[in-house]
């Protein structure tokens, strides 16, 4: 049914989308959406959507209230937060609009002109799903369909002449009972795993980690919109690597040297153990400031990449975050070793403002 309000609602959503697109760069570089993430949606603050008019500044206005309390008593939260005239007057609040992650990804895709991802391999994996679509005459009582049962009983009573409109009592019997039944559907499913690796050695400061955090939020958002089933693994490394949860990943601070190969080796093990490359689309992202401990380790990295990680992955992304201490050498080594590898994507992120373009670099290939 088309409701009268639908066109206006849609128009409103369009305006919201337009505003988000317009301010996307701002949202991304400030990272403010991350804290507002719910389960499936993000609440986006939109400051300029309401229609301006000449009105009083609320703070200075004051007003009249009702209730007990001596002079000087602070009022409850309501007035203090939103302005006194909550209710029929438009307040000063910033409009917050819930946008689903899928929609946000779509906006990101539109703005960055990202191609849709083509899952690798021709054969996709099939999974089965149960759908309750049918009706059966037998089944477990827990699935009894009350409405159908009563309808059936009503039909029977009318047919047999046992129905009295003045005393409409309907008594279902055994034969009237109807049950919901399910069908098993086979649906193709595409699986993907994102493996985040980050250098947490002393040279990676808070700002660098914040950049990684923002970048990974948007990578997640986009990839989630492209695959039905997505897994995420987090690996941190300094001189040694380990798998951690998301919170630790973004908050831990270590010191010490850097051996990138340790992370690559661990990623290789994780993939071998959990995510067979024939069934999974694999997305490793590695962030570091480009410092590595000696040339030996770098050549070890190159070997791991050539032999395992690159052939297995859809794309392998390396993002180099600029830090005051890092030499930024590793990206040069990668460029030298793989002058133009189609699956290796490199990006240098010097500041928050460059996150957007780096996202475009990473995701722009549509793989």
């Amino acid at each position, binding site marked *: 049914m088309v409701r009268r*309000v639908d066109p206006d609602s849609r*128009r409103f959503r369009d305006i919201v989308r337009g505003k988000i697109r317009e301010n996307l760069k701002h949202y991304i570089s400030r990272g403010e959406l991350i804290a507002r993430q719910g389960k499936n949606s993000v609440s986006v603050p939109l400051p300029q959507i309401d229609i301006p008019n000449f009105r*009083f500044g609320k703070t200075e206005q*004051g007003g009249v209230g*009702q209730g007990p309390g001596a002079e000087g008593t602070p009022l*409850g939260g309501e007035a203090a937060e939103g302005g006194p005239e909550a*209710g029929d007057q438009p307040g000063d609040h910033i409009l917050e609009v819930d946008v689903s992650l899928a929609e946000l990804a779509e906006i990101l895709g539109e703005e960055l002109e990202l191609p849709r991802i083509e899952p690798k391999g021709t054969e996709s994996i099939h999974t089965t799903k149960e759908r309750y679509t049918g009706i059966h005459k037998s089944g477990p009582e827990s699935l009894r369909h009350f409405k159908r049962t009563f309808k059936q009983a009503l039909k029977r009573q009318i047919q047999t002449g046992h129905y009295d409109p003045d005393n409409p009592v309907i008594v279902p019997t055994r034969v009237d009972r109807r049950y919901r039944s399910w069908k098993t559907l086979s649906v193709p499913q595409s699986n993907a795993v994102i493996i985040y690796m980050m250098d947490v050695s002393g040279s990676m400061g808070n700002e660098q980690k914040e950049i990684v955090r923002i970048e990974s939020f948007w990578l997640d958002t986009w990839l989630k919109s492209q695959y039905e089933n997505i897994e995420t693994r987090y690996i941190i490394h300094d001189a040694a690597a380990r798998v951690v949860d998301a919170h630790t990943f973004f908050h831990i601070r270590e010191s010490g040297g850097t051996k990138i190969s340790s992370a690559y080796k661990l990623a290789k093990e994780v993939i071998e153990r959990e995510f067979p490359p024939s069934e999974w689309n694999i997305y490793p992202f590695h962030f570091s400031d480009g410092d590595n401990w000696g040339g030996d380790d770098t050549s070890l990295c190159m070997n791991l990449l050539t032999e395992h990680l690159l052939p297995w992955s859809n794309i392998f992304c390396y993002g180099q975050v600029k830090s005051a201490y890092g030499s930024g050498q590793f990206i040069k080594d990668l460029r030298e070793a793989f002058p133009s590898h189609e699956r290796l994507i490199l990006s240098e992120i010097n500041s928050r403002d460059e996150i957007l373009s780096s996202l475009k670099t990473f995701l722009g290939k549509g793989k």
Partner: protein
Amino acid sequence: MFESRTLTPRLEELRRTIRGHAVEFGLDFFDVIFELVDYDEMNMIASYGGFPTRYPHWRFGMQFEELQKSYSYGLSKIYELVINNDPCYAYLMRANPEVDQKLVMAHVYGHSDFFKNNYWFSKTNRKMVDTMANHAVLVRRAIDRYGLDEVEQWIDVCLSLENLIDPHAPYFRESTKQSEESIEEQKFATHGTKFKTKPYMEGFVNPPEVLKREREQRIKALEKEERFPAKPQRDVLSFLVENAPLKRWQREILAVVRDEAYYFAPQAMTKIMNEGWASYWHSKIMTTRALDASEVIDYADHHSGTLGTRPGVINPYKIGIELFRDIEERWNTGRFGPEYDACDDYRARQRWDKKLGLGREKIFEVRKIYNDITFIDEFLTQDFCERAQLFTYKFDRHSGNYVIDSREFQEVKGKLLDSLANMGRPVILVDDANFKNRGELHLTHDYQGVPLKLDYARATLENLHKVWTRGVHLETQVDGKKKLLSFGGTRHEEKVLG
């Protein structure tokens, strides 16, 4: 999925009973057509201000989303919705229990009586349902011709200026003719200064060419003084409709927005009285007639819900109903007039009862001729103010909170009246359409101690510029200084005035 909106036989029966009670109490209302709706239909209707057809605009969609969200989070629920029209349309929520339906019906008959009889509603369009539908057609036609984006942007501009009306304009006719004429006359009558002299000296003492030059100078000075508009005008919207260089469809839409603003204005001007009156009657009808013993608890719960207060907010339902009851009580017992006012014996005042029994008659009279401002001004007494625990509050910079400022009667009353003046909006007048002799528009904010919200004021000036197409200026006060905010099409300027 579409269920009929007509009342069920049982509700129809209840409606007839409640209507009978209302008539018996002397309420005199338009016919009320009740429709039965689900909560999302209710929210939908509410987001269009109660009207079945309105022009398309995104803000209705936004309101709908807000209502849906706050309903589904359990934060708010629309109980009653009635529109001022002949006949009135009112909506009942299908899922409400019977006692709520009765309460809402009684409340709605109260509103309908108020719409029909209150003077401030007397100039409103009673066929607004039809008019709104016509407005919708007009806007849709413009959209078909000029495209949604362009028309929508124009509506946004118009809505931004929507509150620049003169809520009292419908109640008097003012002629601007006179002042125009007098300037013309003055121009005609003016002449140079003649010195007294003997006739034969005339040509020397008052040489004709000097007199002529002087006269021309004076006419020029008069012309400079002559302003357009001749008098500052509060109905800025009508000034723009008449004088701004607009295309026809733009002018029509601006007029539509103005029309609707005038239609809604009396509701803002009588919020306290209107809700108070309706609450008074639902309470009277329910508690003395319609309530079944089994429903008392639910009724009391919902009634007290509507009358609940929060610090920092005046609940119009509560103040309204209590003032009406206070008036009824005072006129029943004769607690008014010079004799009562002069009495300063506390106990005598407490026991004062002249058994006049004029209360009911008085409140009917009050609902006929007062609006919120005159209502509060006339009937908010010191006794009432103390009983109702009214106070003023202000923003305390030190703690960043709003704090209770005073319980002094005069202060409370003054502040309350201030907040009701001009429906709680700043008074802004257009006083010069040829500012700087460059055809620019000059508005003045009639500053009463509360400054404007500046970012909004600037954004509104931008919209005003889209209407006037030349420079626009607003004189107001910022931080205690007179300032002129200007927007010339590209950037904002701000000038301190001496």
